[in-house]
Structure formats: structure tokens, C-alpha cells
């Protein structure tokens, strides 16, 4: 039943673009009907997922499919159901937002194409989550990746969009090829491509499989240093697309890692340490790069790298837990990681939608040109701030809860009796560093973009429309719910973790109970915090002192202007200096000259190090080598010579060496 609901949701989502196509003559109606179909699909899908979570057992459908090795093997277990929540939820919110943000009436075919692929990517991701056959998984994977490509390419007239889309496509395809190899290995060793049979074969987890898994899924998840496609793609796409890409698409990589690692009866501990290390590097460098960005959406994109790193740290702890047979680590690591998947989807989507509203209203995403947006768009600002608090992992919102679970996992590791495992608790200070940096970064974003005064002529005309605010508010509500009632999701997480780790749920009962009791105290603390804020505000309002309006204290400056405000770059400078070793900043400086300098300027940007310092030069070099290599054999004689030499070589090989 639950799976049938999900399948219905998939079908509706996939066909939502058609709804717009059919009625393309009436753009507004067309878009709304597409949105309605997608929403209906999302409701069904989420209902199915919740039903599955409630039932606590996996639903299965099997059907034949006559592509090689493939069968229509579908399975909805706890892990799938948990991932289905953001997979259906975020696109639904994005589609509603898109009706106002990207109206078909003014964007025409672009919007039409966007809607088609928007539904398709939703369907593909959902199919991915329930696929239980490697070929079906790969097919869904690639449809998802290609839809993502077309979504990024939406505004294809701009060159940077095309470049970003190309980098995305190349990265996605290389990832897919790694998965080819991964599943081919699994399939040939177990003799089947059905996940169930692979799991039953009890394969040994080898280094090759791990490397392929990390490369293939890591490319999609955006783990450092495989994140290089992500900032460009996410900033080039329309914002409700970025919300889906960043909030959900990346998580497909995490899902893949979990799904594939769940196929092995035992995991070696070094897998866990490796994932933990990669996650830690991603988290720290992701937030460091984010700090250095000027472009609002690029900044948010780098935060995705950070958050995926946090998720990977949780997953790594869970791996270690499985390897050493410690149920607490499995539960807390898995629970923290998967809950953070959901949380990150919620608040990152919220933030991207907010960024989209700002971009639409001000016509720029350049942080240092913005300012004072909150005065004109108070609700958007408040919702964005909400998301910022959540993503910084600050209580009482959801970001804190999942990070806390990961913290708890690394603290539990302290007391492990297995050698070396205690060292993994060094991830706790790493998380603290990441949390501090993220808070600094979002203080910068909210402070510079929304507060203060406009730094340039780009200022919004008015508040975003209700169609744009409503989905953001819905996302914010979900963030608040998880933040306030973290214990609510623990039973589902426990079930999924037990299935994934091939242990009986009763083994996880004890740590789950402990975590739940702690989580319920978080609820208490959050209630106290909110009560205190409310109480203090009431007292403070009762005080109602004489209020005077005046200018900001200028510290003695006679005529302060809005351009003298601190900018985003200056705000982050002290921190980015610390990470100078990882950046390759490019600055364009025009120094003031002469006794009466006419103008001076300073423009700096921090391109992605992996892309700018490694991949682009490498591909240039490859192109150069290739063009050198191409200079040979244009003559007919040369071509004939090749034929002759091949013959001689073959004969020599056969008769002399072979």
C-alpha cells in the first residue's frame, strides 16, 4: 500500500510537466496545473513514506523488465522512506514558489521546460529511493542527473550557465561511470543485480568497491574535493531549482553510500574512518570557501558542501559502529546523518528560496552590493534569518538536533574499548569549528544582505509575493517542528538504522531510549528558551521607555555614508586569511595614483580551488597535448604507413612474442 502510494506519487510527479505542456496557451493556468499535479504527487508520496515509517516494515513490488540484468524490483524500507520525505517535500515547496518566481507567462518556453524536468527529477529521485535493482537504480540515477543538467541549463543563453552545466554534466557522468563499475563488480561477484540477492550473497567489502562508491556517490554528494561542479551549477540555476539540487539531489549521493554499504553484512572500520575524514575535510573547507564567497547563491552552495560533510561524519561514525559492533554509534551516527539530510533539505531550500526572492527583488546576488533588504522585505528577511539560525546549528531549531546526534556519536566513541575508535571523537572539535564558522558566515550573510542600509542602488521595491512566502513559511515550520520535537523522528531512525546495519531493532532499543530521553530535555530547554524570550520581551515592552529616533553613532565621522558600512568581504576577511592556504584568490587592484587620485578599485574573488587550480589547468594541458598529438598523420602516406605498421606489429606480436 505504502509503495503503491509512492509509485502513484512518482507517476504524477513525472507527468506534471505534461500538464503544463497541454495547456501552454494559457501560461498561468498551465503552470498552476503543473504545480497542482506535482503537489498531488508529493502528497501521495509523502503519505506513502509516512505510512511505511509507521508500519515499520518494508514493502516490496517485483515485476519483470527485459533490459539486460534488470528487473523492476522496488522496495520501500525505512531508509527509503526517510529519504522520500525531502525528495517529495522540497520540490513541492519549490514548485509553488516557482509559480510566482518563475512565471510561465514571462519566461515562456524556459519555464515550460523547467517544469517538465522539475517533475522528472522529482520522480527520478523518488524512483531511485525505492529501486532495489542495480540497473533500475542506475537508470533512475542518470535520469535524475540529466534532469538536473537540463534544469541547470534553463537559462542557457548565458555563457556561465552553459559552462556550469557542462561541468555539472561531466562530473555527473564520470560519477555514473564509477557507479557502472561499482555495480558491475557487485553484480559479477554476487551473480545478481537485485539488491536483495547481493545482500544475501554476503560479499566481502573490498578497497576497490569502497573507492568506486566514494568516487561515484561522492561526486554527486559534493564531498571535497569532488564538489567542484556544485557551486557553479547551484548558482547558475533558478533558485527553486537550486533548492532542489542542493537540498535533495546531493542527498542522492548520501543515499547511495548508505544503500550500498547496507548491502554488506559487515563493514571494515577503515571505511568508517575514511568517510569520517572525508566528511571532516568537506565540512571545514566547505564552510571556509563559503566564507570567502561574494555571491549569495555560491555561498549557499558551498554550505551544502559543509553540510554534506557533517552528514558524512555521521555516516562515518555509523560505519565505525557497525565495524566494531557498537549499537550506540550505529544509532547516533546513522540517526544524526540521516536526520541532517532531512534538516539540511529543509533549511537549505528555505535559504535558496529566500536568496531567490532577494535576487528577484534587487537584481543582484552580489552580497557587497546589497544591504537593508529587511526594511522592505521584512517577512522574507525573518524567514531567511530563521533558516540561517537553523543552518548554523543553533538551538532551538532543527540543525542543532542532528548535529547534536553526530556530536553524541563521536562522544560515545570516546568510551569504545576497540583500539583506535576513540580517536574518532576528534571529530567533535571539528564539528565545533564548523559550527562556529557557519555561524560567522551566516552572521555575515544576514547582517550584510538584510540589515543595515543598501550599499548600492539595488534595493527591492517591495515584499515578495504571497506565493513565494508561503512555501518558505512551510519549510520554516517544518524546521521548527523538528527542532522542538526531536524525539518524534527517533523511532523511524532506529528502525531504518537497524535494517541498514542488519541488526535486530531490539539491539538499538537501549541507545534509542537514552537518546529519546535526552532529546525530550532538548524540547524542555527549547521551551524554556522561547518562554524566556517571550517573557523578557513582555517585561521589556511593559518598561516602554521614552524612545528617540536618531542616526547611528558614527564614531565621530562627520558624514557617514551607506557605502562606508562593513562589507561581506571585510567581515569575513580575518577568517578567510586563515584559510589562505586552501584558496587561490584572484584580485584585480587599481591603486590610487598621483596627488589627486581619480579612482581606485579593488576587486577580488575566490574561485573554486579544485576547479580553477587543478581541473581547468589539467584539461587545458590535456587539450594542448591532444592538439599536438593531432598534428601527426595527415598525409595519405602517413595513413598508409599506419596500416602497414599495424600489420607488421600484429604479425610480430603473434609470431615473435605472444
Amino acid at each position: 500500500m505504502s509503495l503503491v502510494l509512492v509509485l502513484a506519487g512518482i507517476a504524477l510527479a513525472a507527468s506534471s510537466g505534461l500538464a503544463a505542456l497541454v495547456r501552454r496557451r494559457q501560461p498561468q493556468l498551465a503552470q498552476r496545473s503543473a504545480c497542482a499535479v506535482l503537489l498531488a504527487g508529493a502528497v501521495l508520496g509523502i503519505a506513502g513514506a509516512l505510512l511505511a515509517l509507521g508500519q515499520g516494515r518494508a514493502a516490496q513490488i517485483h515485476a519483470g523488465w527485459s533490459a539486460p540484468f534488470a528487473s523492476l524490483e522496488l522496495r520501500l524500507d525505512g531508509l527509503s522512506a526517510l529519504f522520500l520525505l525531502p525528495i517529495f517535500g522540497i520540490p513541492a515547496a519549490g514548485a509553488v514558489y516557482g509559480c510566482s518566481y518563475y512565471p510561465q507567462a514571462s519566461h515562456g518556453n524556459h519555464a515550460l521546460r523547467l517544469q517538465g524536468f522539475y517533475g522528472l527529477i522529482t520522480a527520478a529521485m523518488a524512483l531511485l529511493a525505492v529501486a532495489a535493482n542495480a540497473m533500475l537504480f542506475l537508470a533512475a540515477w542518470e535520469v535524475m542527473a540529466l534532469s538536473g543538467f537540463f534544469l541547470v541549463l534553463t537559462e542557457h543563453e548565458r555563457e556561465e550557465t552553459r559552462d556550469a552545466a557542462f561541468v555539472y554534466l561531466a562530473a555527473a557522468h564520470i560519477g555514473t561511470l564509477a557507479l557502472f563499475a561499482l555495480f558491475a563488480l557487485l553484480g559479477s561477484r554476487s551473480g545478481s543485480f537485485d539488491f536483495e540477492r547481493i545482500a544475501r550473497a554476503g560479499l566481502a567489502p573490498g578497497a576497490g568497491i569502497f573507492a568506486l562508491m566514494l568516487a561515484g556517490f561522492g561526486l554527486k554528494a559534493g564531498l571535497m574535493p569532488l564538489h567542484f561542479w556544485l557551486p557553479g551549477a547551484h548558482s547558475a540555476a533558478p533558485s527553486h531549482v537550486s533548492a532542489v539540487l542542493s537540498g535533495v539531489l546531493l542527498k542522492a549521493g548520501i543515499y547511495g553510500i548508505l544503500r550500498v554499504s547496507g548491502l554488506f553484512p559487515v563493514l571494515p572500520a577503515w571505511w568508517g574512518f575514511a568517510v569520517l575524514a572525508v566528511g571532516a575535510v568537506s565540512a571545514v573547507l566547505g564552510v571556509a570557501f563559503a566564507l570567502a564567497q561574494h555571491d549569495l547563491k555560491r555561498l549557499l552552495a558551498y554550505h551544502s558542501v559543509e553540510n554534506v560533510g557533517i552528514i558524512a561524519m555521521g555516516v562515518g561514525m555509523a560505519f565505525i559502529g557497525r565495524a566494531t559492533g557498537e549499537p550506540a554509534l550505529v544509532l547516533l551516527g546513522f540517526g544524526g546523518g540521516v536526520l541532517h539530510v532531512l534538516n539540511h533539505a529543509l533549511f537549505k531550500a528555505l535559504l535558496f528560496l529566500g536568496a531567490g526572492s532577494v535576487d528577484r527583488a534587487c537584481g543582484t546576488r552580489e552580497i557587497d552590493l546589497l544591504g537593508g533588504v529587511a526594511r522592505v522585505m521584512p517577512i522574507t528577511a525573518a524567514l531567511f534569518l530563521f533558516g540561517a539560525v537553523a543552518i548554523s546549528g543553533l538551538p532551538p531549531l532543527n540543525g542543532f538536533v542532528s548535529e547534536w546526534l553526530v556530536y553524541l556519536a563521536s562522544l560515545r566513541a570516546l568510551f569504545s574499548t576497540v583500539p583506535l575508535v576513540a580517536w574518532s571523537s576528534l571529530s567533535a572539535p571539528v564539528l565545533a569549528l564548523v559550527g562556529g564558522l557557519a555561524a560567522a558566515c551566516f552572521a555575515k550573510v544576514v547582517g550584510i544582505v538584510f540589515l543595515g542600509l543598501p550599499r548600492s542602488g539595488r534595493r527591492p521595491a517591495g515584499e515578495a509575493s504571497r506565493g513565494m512566502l508561503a512555501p518558505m513559511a512551510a519549510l520554516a515550520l517544518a524546521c521548527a517542528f523538528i527542532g522542538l520535537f526531536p524525539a518524534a523522528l527517533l523511532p523511524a531512525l532506529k528502525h531504518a538504522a537497524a535494517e541498514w546495519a542488519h541488526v535486530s531493532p531490539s539491539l538499538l532499543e537501549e541507545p534509542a531510549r537514552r537518546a529519546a530521553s535526552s532529546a525530550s530535555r532538548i524540547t524542555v530547554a527549547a521551551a524554556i528558551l522561547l518562554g524566556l524570550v517571550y517573557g523578557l520581551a513582555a517585561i521589556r515592552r511593559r518598561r516602554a521607555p521614552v524612545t528617540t529616533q536618531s542616526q547611528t553613532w558614527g564614531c565621530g565621522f562627520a558624514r557617514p555614508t551607506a557605502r562606508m558600512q562593513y562589507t561581506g568581504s571585510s567581515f569575513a576577511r580575518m577568517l578567510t586569511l586563515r584559510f589562505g592556504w586552501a584558496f587561490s584568490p584572484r584580485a584585480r587592484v587599481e591603486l590610487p595614483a598621483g596627488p589627486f587620485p581619480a579612482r581606485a578599485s579593488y576587486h577580488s574573488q575566490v574561485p573554486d580551488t579544485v576547479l580553477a587550480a587543478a581541473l581547468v589547468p589539467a584539461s587545458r594541458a590535456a587539450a594542448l597535448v591532444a592538439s599536438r598529438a593531432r598534428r601527426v598523420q595527415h598525409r595519405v602516406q602517413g595513413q598508409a604507413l599506419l596500416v602497414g605498421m599495424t600489420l607488421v606489429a600484429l604479425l610480430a606480436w603473434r609470431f615473435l612474442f605472444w
Partner: protein
Amino acid sequence: MLFVVLAPLAFSVLALLDPLAARRPRALLAGGLTHLAGVGWLIVAAPSPALHGWLELDPLAKVVLPVISLLFAACSVYAQGYLARRRDRDNRLFVGGLLILLSAMTVVATSQHLGLSWVAIELTTLSTAPLIYFDKSARALEAAWKYLLVCSLGIALALLGTFFLALASASTGGPHSLLLSDLVRAGHMLSQAWVRAGFAFLLVGYGTKMGLAPLHSWKPDAYGEAPGILGALLSGGVTSLGFVSLARVVQVCSAAGEAAFARDALVAMGLFSMGLASVYVIGQRDFKRMLAYSSVEHMGILAFGLGLGGVATSSAMFHAVNNALTKGVLFLAAGNIHRSYGSKLVDEVRGAARRLPVSGSLFLAGFLAITGSPPFGPFFSEFSILNGALGAGRYAVGALYLIFLSVIFVGMGATVLKVVPGDPAGAPEVANTRDSLATAGPPLFLMALVLALGLHLPRGLKVLFDAAAARVGT
């Protein structure tokens, strides 16, 4: 059986004699459709071998002949639109040559006699060389000259290789025959040394026809300069037939106990082709030449699969079908784009998806399909070949295969993404070259087939591929 060979010939004679240029394309259409119908009847009726068993619809033929027939039929529809726009050129030789090509291809596909195969392959070279020169430009002439010279050199060596095999069969007690079934039956009676040498010569000869690197050098020029229709037929039809002929030679080698060397050589050349294609595809500014290198790559994949044996060979059969259809899509779409912009350089062509919505999108879709993106057919065949390699424990060659695939994807992607998206305003435009039913319909039809093969591979086809692979031997 003879009907499908002779009917195109008859139409070709008609076309060559027809004084009315406007009427000739119809002969092409009629020839293509008649052939298609004939092949359909052949599949259904499964007649007994013709010409003393020299022509037979064996599993290998069943794999390629319908595909070639479909491809040709699609091209003949396309030609209606294409030739209508190319009134400036005399189409007598074009139409006649294509029909002769069809007839020769049919013979190669069904031939059970290595000598007859050779003659027919020779005929495909001769009948297509003048067609490459259809544009009558200096570069087209150069391309035709290179094609003719290099392919003829290959074909001469192939004849020598065929002689070697014949000699091998002439040992005491040998069959003294070049009929495939005789050779296979004789098996170890064949003189091994001569089979060995014969394989080397035939690999070079038919490898040239297939365009395996380093024997591929005629391809970029020929595909770059020839009309899209010819590119489609060469890269989808003729090269596949080179593959089939080579597979039949491997069959003889297996029977003679010489398979190990043959397979190693095929794997080596296959990987070399893919590697070379990946070098040449990076930074390619001419999108038709890019397709030529893609063809080199896919011939490499076919040779690779054939060389690996087992599952991979069966998948190579599947891939031959996928490659033929997808190359049809790509060349026809590229031809449309080329004509509309009057250029095939990425510096001048952009926004094809907007100016030619169908052709532009098909070019992109074809690119994604040929590079192995699900849910298109080539994904399954390319994956299965990899699976065969890894399943056989050949991790190193599997890794190389993957690396080359990814480099080629990136290289082709860079070129395709310069051509398809973007704003076409300001790019050169040739009047009256927008998508029409005749020029956009056939590639669309082929694309649908490629997609269908990915979504659903009929059981019968799977059995057929396995049977064809079993023929080749292990």
C-alpha cells in the same frame, strides 16, 4: 533471400538511367522500403539459405540486417528532404551509389562465404567513394581520395588474409573451401600457422573498414566532408558490417583453436581505439569530425566486447545495434545543423536547439545516448560489456575502458554544449533549412527506437544476441 539483394540493384539501375533528377530520390525511397519489407519477410519466413548456402540469415545477419535496413529506410526518407534542398548537385550517382551500397551491405550481412564477403565489402568501398565527393569541394575530394586509398589498401590486405585462410583450409583432409560452416567444421584440421597469419591480415583489412585505430585515419575526413546521410550509413551500416565480418573470422579462429591471440589482439585494438578517440575528441571544434572519432571509439568498444568473449560478446552484438541506430540519429541531426548554419565549426554554430528544435535536441539526446546515459539502449550494452570485463576478472582493461569513456564524454560534451544551447541570433544562417518532416522525422524515429531498446529489450532479441555470440565462440 536473393530478392533483398537484387531489388536495390534494380532500383539503382532505374535511378542511374532515369533522366529526371526530381524523380530519382523516389527510386531511393522505393528501394529502401522494398528492402525493409523484404527483410521483414525474411525474418518472419526464415527461408533456407540461398546460392548453395553462400547467403544465409544466420544469427549475426539477423542482428545487423534489420538494423541496416531500418537505417537505410530512415535515410531514404531523409534523402527526400535533403535532395530536394540540394538541387544544385546532380544526384544520379548519389542515388545509384546508395542503392548499390544497400545491395552490397545486404550481401556482406548474410554472406557465409569469406570470399563473397570480401567482394561485397570491396563493393561498398567503391560505391561510396564518389558519394563522399558529393559536395565537390577541394576538401571533399581530399576526403574521398583518402577514403579510397586507405580502404583499398586495407581491402587488398584483407584479400591476402582471405587467401591465407583458404590456404589453411587446403591442408590434407581440409575442406578446401571458404564457406564458414566448412571451415568451422574442419576446426583443428586447418593449418594453424596460416589461420594465425590470416587473422592478422584480416584484422588489419576489416579493421580498416571498421575504422579501428590506428587504421581509422580515413574516418574524420570522410565523415567530416560527406553528407550526413552518408555518414549515417557509413558509421551505422558499413562499419557494423566490418565488425560482423571480423566476428566471422574470429569464429573460424575459435574453431581452429587460435582464439586466444585473436581475442587479445581485439581487446588491445579496441582499447587503443578508445584511447585514441579520447585524445582526438578533446577540444574538437568540428562537430562532424567529432562524430567520426566517436565512431572510432564505438568500433573500439565493439572490438573490445568481441575480444572479451562470453557476456561481453553478446553485449557487443547489442551494442552494434545501438551504435548503428544512434549514429544514424547523430549524423542526420548533425547534417541538418550543418546545413542550416553552413558551418560545422563550434565557433560559428550555437543555439541549434532553438533554431532547429528537433534536430538540435536530437543531437543532444543522441550524444547522451551514445555516451551511455540511461535509459537509452547504449547504456545497457556499454554497461554489460564492462560487466563482462569485470566479471572475467580483467580489472585493468575495465578501468581503462571506463577512463576512456569518461574522457570521451567530457570531450564530446564540451563540443555538443557549444552547439546545442545558447542563442542562435547572429550565427550564420542558410535560407530554407529549418526542420521539416522529411529531415527531422527519420532521426526522431531512430531516436525513439534507441530509447525503446533501453526501456524494453524484447526477449527474442536477447536470445538472438546470445545466439550470435555463441556463434562466434568462446
